[in-house]
C-alpha cells in the first residue's frame, strides 16, 4: 500500500507565448517528506511554485493537494487548503514588527471579519489573543522570540529569512514550499537552517524546497527532482541524482 501523497503534480505544462517554461512535469510529494527541486537557473522551478500556489494558471496539467484540485483557485484559497510558500526575494511586510508579520501568517486559520473587528466583538478579541500566543510560539521555534517587537525589515538578513519561514509555519500548513531559503546565508546560518528544517520534518511537516546550495540539498532531502529547460530530467535519492549523467550534463554542459 502506498502512502497517500500530499501533493500530486501531473503533466503540468506552462507556456508563455511560444516559450514553454514547464513541459509535462509530473511528480508527487508524500507526507513527512522533504523533496528538493533543483536545476540550473531558468529551469522553471519558480514558475512551478507560481503554478502550485495559484499565481499562474498552467496551460495544461493537474495539481492535487491531498486529493483536491488546486488549479483555478486563488492564492489565498490555496493557503487555506494547507499549502503555503516563501519567496525567493524576501517579502516581509514593511512597517510591521516580527510578531505582527508572523501573526499575518495565522490569517488563513482565523475568520474574524470586518463586522466582528469593527465592533470589537468578544469572538474577535479571543481569536486575536490566540493568534498572538501562537505567533509567539512559532517565533520561539525558530529562535526569534527575543526580537518579536522589532520591525521585521530591520532585522539582519539571515533572521529575515527565518522570519519568513516562521510566518509561513504559522499557518500550520500541510506542505510548505520553500523558494531558495538559504539564499544569502553563510555557512553557519545554512547549517542552522538545515537542522531546523529536519526538525520540522520530524514533527510531521512536509517540505518541497527549491535550492541551489547543494550541501543543504544533499543533507536534508529524502528525494530530489531535477528540472532543466522546463522538463523533469531525473529523480531519485541524493546519491542517485548526484551520479546521474543527465544531471551532470545539465549543470556542467559536458558529457560525463
Amino acid at each position, binding site marked *: 500500500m502506498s502512502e497517500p501523497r500530499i501533493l500530486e503534480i501531473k503533466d503540468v505544462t506552462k*507556456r*508563455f*507565448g511560444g516559450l514553454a517554461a514547464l513541459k509535462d512535469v509530473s511528480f508527487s510529494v508524500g507526507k513527512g517528506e522533504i523533496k528538493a527541486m533543483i536545476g540550473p537557473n531558468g529551469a522553471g522551478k*519558480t514558475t512551478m511554485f*507560481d503554478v502550485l500556489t495559484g*499565481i499562474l494558471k498552467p496551460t495544461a496539467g493537474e495539481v492535487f493537494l491531498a486529493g483536491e484540485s488546486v488549479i483555478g483557485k486563488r492564492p489565498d484559497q490555496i493557503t487555506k487548503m494547507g499549502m503555503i510558500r516563501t519567496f525567493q526575494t524576501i517579502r516581509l511586510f514593511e512597517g510591521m514588527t516580527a510578531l505582527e508579520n508572523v501573526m499575518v501568517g495565522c490569517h488563513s486559520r482565523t475568520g474574524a471579519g470586518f463586522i466582528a473587528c469593527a465592533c470589537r466583538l468578544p469572538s474577535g478579541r479571543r481569536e486575536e489573543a490566540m493568534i498572538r500566543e501562537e505567533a509567539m510560539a512559532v517565533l520561539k521555534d525558530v529562535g526569534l522570540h527575543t526580537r518579536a517587537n522589532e520591525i521585521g525589515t530591520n532585522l539582519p538578513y539571515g533572521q529575515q529569512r527565518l522570519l519568513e519561514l516562521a510566518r509561513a509555519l504559522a499557518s500550520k500548513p500541510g506542505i510548505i514550499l520553500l523558494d531558495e531559503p538559504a539564499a544569502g546565508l553563510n555557512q553557519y546560518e545554512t547549517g542552522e537552517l538545515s537542522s531546523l528544517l529536519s526538525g520540522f520534518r520530524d514533527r510531521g511537516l512536509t517540505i518541497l524546497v527549491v535550492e541551489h546550495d547543494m550541501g543543504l540539498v544533499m543533507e536534508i532531502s529524502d528525494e530530489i527532482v531535477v528540472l532543466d529547460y522546463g522538463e523533469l530530467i531525473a529523480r531519485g535519492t541524493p546519491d542517485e541524482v548526484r551520479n546521474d549523467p543527465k544531471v551532470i550534463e545539465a549543470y556542467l554542459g559536458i558529457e560525463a
Partner: protein
Amino acid sequence: MNTGDSKQRKLLWGSVAVVALVVIATLIDKGSIGLQLILSGLTVGSIYALVAMGFSIIYSSTRVINFAQGGFSMLGGMLMYSLAVSGKLPMWLAFILAVLIVTALGAGFERVVIRPMKDHSVITVIIVTIGLSIFMTAVAKWIWGTDPVKIASFSGDKPLRLFGASLVPQSLWVFGLTLVAVALVFLFFNRTLLGKGMRAAADNPDAASLVGVSSSTSSLVAWTLAAGLGAAAGVVIAPINFAQYSAGTALGLKGFSAAVLGGLGSAPGAVVGGLVLGVLETITAGYLPSGYKDAVAFVILILVLLVRPQGLLGRPEEVKV
C-alpha cells in the same frame, strides 16, 4: 498560442470597427452636417492629441502623470492674448514667444519642484502636480481675471466649404500645427541621439544612463517638450474656443483620457486617441443633450482601463512576481 493575446487582438480590431461604424453612420444619418461634426471633432481632437502627447511623453520618461498638463495649454492661450492683443505684437512673434515662455516654465517646474521629489511616492507627486495645476489656474485668474478673452483668428474667419460642410480657417491652422508637431516629435524620438536615448531610458534607465542619457535629462526634456506642445495647442485653439483661466482643467482631463485611450507612453497612440476622442465627442453632442458630451471622455477612460489598460497602441505593463 496564448488565448489572451488573440482576445486582445479581437478587442483592438473590434474597437476600430466600432469607431469606423459610428463615423459612417453619422455621415449617412446627418449628411453634410455629419461631415461638419466630424471635421469639428478632428479639430478639437487634434488639440487633445497634442495635450495627450504631452502626457505620454512625461509618463514614459518619468512614470508621473502630470495633472498640470492642461494648464500649459491655458497659459499658452492667455499669453498669446497678452502678447498679440494687449501687447500688439505681430501674430507670429506672439505665437513663438508664448510657446517659449510656457516651455521655459515647464522646464522650471521640473527642476524646482518635480526633480527634488523623484524618490517620493506616486500619490505625493500626483498631488504636487495637482498643486501646480491649482497654482497655475490661480495665477492666471489673478493676472487675467475671470472673463474669457478673444484672440483674432490667424487668417480671418471666412468659413471654407467642403462637401457641404463649413470649416473655419483656424481649423486648418490646428491641423497644420498638429501635423508639424507630430512630425517634429517623431523626428526627435527616432532620429536624434537624445530622443532615442530617452526612449531607451524609458525601457531601461540603467543602461541608458550608461550611455549618457540620465533620468535627470530625460525628465527635463520630457517636461520641456510637454509644456511646449501644450502651449502650442493652447495658442492655436484660442481663436476658436476663447481662452480663459479655467480652461486648463477640462482640457487636461480630456487630453488625459485621450492619452490613456491611445496608450499612455505612446506618442502615436496619443495622436490616435486624441482624434478618436474628439470625433466621438462631437458626434455624441450631435445626438444627445450637450452636457453628456463631456462624459464621453470618462466613459472611454474607464472602459479602456478595465478592458485594455495599455490602450490601443501601448504595451502591457509587466508585473514581476
